[in-house]
């Protein structure tokens, strides 16, 4: 068994499997066929080769995967599973159970676009559709962040002030199949940092049978709402602590990148963030006052943090890799942000972009275009297009 830290080229799926293995997940119920990713096959291999001690339950569909996960988590096992797009939506019905039952399941949502014409490639509609379920949703930029976020995910989920399931999101292809150098920490170090799972509210032992009462609908809902609020602070704390121990941190729910003196910022989630870092750096060198905000946590939404930082900027361009058809205006993230800033004095203008839908590439050119449009709004005080479908403009190659 490998116990020392090592670094290898690894794609997001393999990194996620290492995350689950290091966290010593005990039960992995999963549907192994499309739209499932290779992540589950990596875990099945770990288990088959005796490298990971866990019960792998190969179920007949995603619905059952979650049902089995709920049972196992209630019985005191650390549960890990994964799904994508139509599979995640097929899981929708039992997906509402873990938050209300306060079960700290950690799951990867490998973001892939929805039908019709959806496929292996990413957008965020599959995950954002779960907006109201009560799951914590974190979005990762590369394989390293996936591995780290799974470990953090258990620490957050199993905190007795939180007790909520955590979804670790990462883009199909651009993270799931993209290999980058990834450090796998030593098992002993992870064991020290992440103690075994023990739910304080549940015990299925006959001599000490306990379970939280589930009679009052309102109480259950208030509990989930309150836990989401408390999770904001816990997510920050876990991130800080992780950085102290493992040397890598991600600024909790929201990261401001190259924002000093910026008049406009663009907001990204997931894999496109890396590309945006390069574009923003290049534009900064040319004297453009643009910055980048990586939204890492969509649930809980970091409202207070947004309210604190937003007045620094004249315009915010939200990049939505999703659609909400017939919405109040634009994509899901932009609407969320609009509500967060509604009562803020000196709030910036909001520009909204749809891009990278169904996994079309988000190119450097497109990001530069979005930065320039947001800067233009900051300069003129006017928003040209409240909602801009970037792919309808010819900005060069897309795949």
């Amino acid at each position, binding site marked *: 068994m490998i116990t020392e830290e090592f670094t*290898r*080229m690894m*794609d997001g799926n393999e990194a996620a499997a290492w995350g689950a293995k290091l966290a010593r997940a005990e039960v992995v119920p999963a549907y192994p066929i499309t739209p499932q990713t290779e992540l589950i096959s990596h875990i099945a291999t770990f288990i088959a080769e005796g490298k990971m001690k866990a019960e792998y339950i190969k179920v007949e569909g995603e619905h059952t995967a979650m049902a089995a996960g709920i049972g196992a988590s209630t019985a005191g096992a650390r549960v890990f599973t994964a799904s994508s797009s139509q599979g995640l939506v097929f899981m929708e019905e039992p997906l509402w159970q873990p938050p209300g039952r306060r079960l700290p399941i950690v799951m990867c949502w490998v973001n892939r676009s929805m039908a019709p014409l959806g*496929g*292996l490639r990413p957008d965020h509609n599959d995950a954002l559709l779960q907006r109201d379920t009560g799951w914590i949703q974190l979005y990762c930029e*590369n394989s390293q962040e996936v591995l780290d976020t799974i470990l953090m995910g258990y620490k957050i989920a199993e905190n007795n002030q939180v007790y909520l399931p955590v979804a670790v999101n990462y*883009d199909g*292809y*651009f*993270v799931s*199949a*993209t*290999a*980058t*150098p990834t450090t796998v920490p030593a098992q002993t170090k992870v064991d020290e940092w992440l103690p075994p799972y023990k739910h304080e509210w549940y015990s299925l032992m006959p001599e000490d049978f306990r379970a939280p009462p589930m009679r009052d609908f309102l109480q259950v809902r208030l509990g989930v709402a309150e836990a989401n609020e408390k999770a904001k602070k816990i997510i920050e704390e876990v991130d800080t602590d992780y950085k102290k121990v493992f040397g890598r941190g991600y600024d909790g729910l929201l990261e401001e990148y190259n924002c000093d003196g910026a008049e406009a910022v663009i907001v990204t989630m997931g*894999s*496109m963030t*890396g*590309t945006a*870092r*390069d574009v923003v750096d290049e534009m900064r060198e040319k004297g453009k006052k643009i910055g980048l905000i990586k939204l890492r946590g969509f649930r809980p939404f970091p409202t207070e943090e947004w309210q604190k930082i937003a007045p620094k900027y004249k315009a915010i361009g939200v990049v939505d890799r999703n659609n909400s058809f017939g919405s109040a205006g634009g994509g899901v993230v932009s609407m969320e942000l609009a509500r967060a800033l509604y009562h803020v004095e000196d709030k910036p203008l909001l520009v909204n972009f749809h891009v990278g839908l169904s996994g079309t*590439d*988000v*190119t*450097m050119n497109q990001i530069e275009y979005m930065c320039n449009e947001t800067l233009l709004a900051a300069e003129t005080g006017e928003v040209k297009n409240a909602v801009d479908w970037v792919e309808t403009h010819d900005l*060069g*190659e*897309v*795949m």
Partner: protein
Amino acid sequence: MNEIRFHGMGGQGAVSGALMLAEAAFNEGKYAQKIPVYGGMRRGGDVTVFLRLDDKPIRRTSGIYEPDALIVLDPALVEHPKVRQGLKKGGTAILNHTIKPSEVDLGVELSNVATVDATSISVEVFGVRAIPIVNTIIMGAIAKATGWVKLDSLYEPIMHAFPGRIGELNVEAVKKGYDAVEVRK
């Protein structure tokens, strides 16, 4: 940053080949990133892989539209306009083909052209297959033509991906590719 684009058919090993090259470069102290692009079908479908090598961490995840280098694993793809699209002037091309490097015309002036008949070598090493495995042969050709990685840096990634007999055959293939490639700079 060195931006490299691979084109192949599913089954030839473009994805795993690019990964082994990335691992070799990483083991030599460089940063690397591999992004594969393919559809729902695997064997026989067209496969594109983007590979970036750099001295600092690679952050962008977008595709490569103006590659510094083009690697083509199947002779039939060389003529395809989509394959040669965007190749930079003064760039590099390494092709699985029976023609000589001096006969290669990709419509742009190149500083480094190499060809290797990887399909024939594949038959020699792996036997006749519906889709010849050429990736490790091309990796050997790349090592010689470009110096992006040393030949022996490729052995560990190969043996990691394919432990045992299959790995040994591929190490043999990578050496044959290295020896057989013709380079025109």
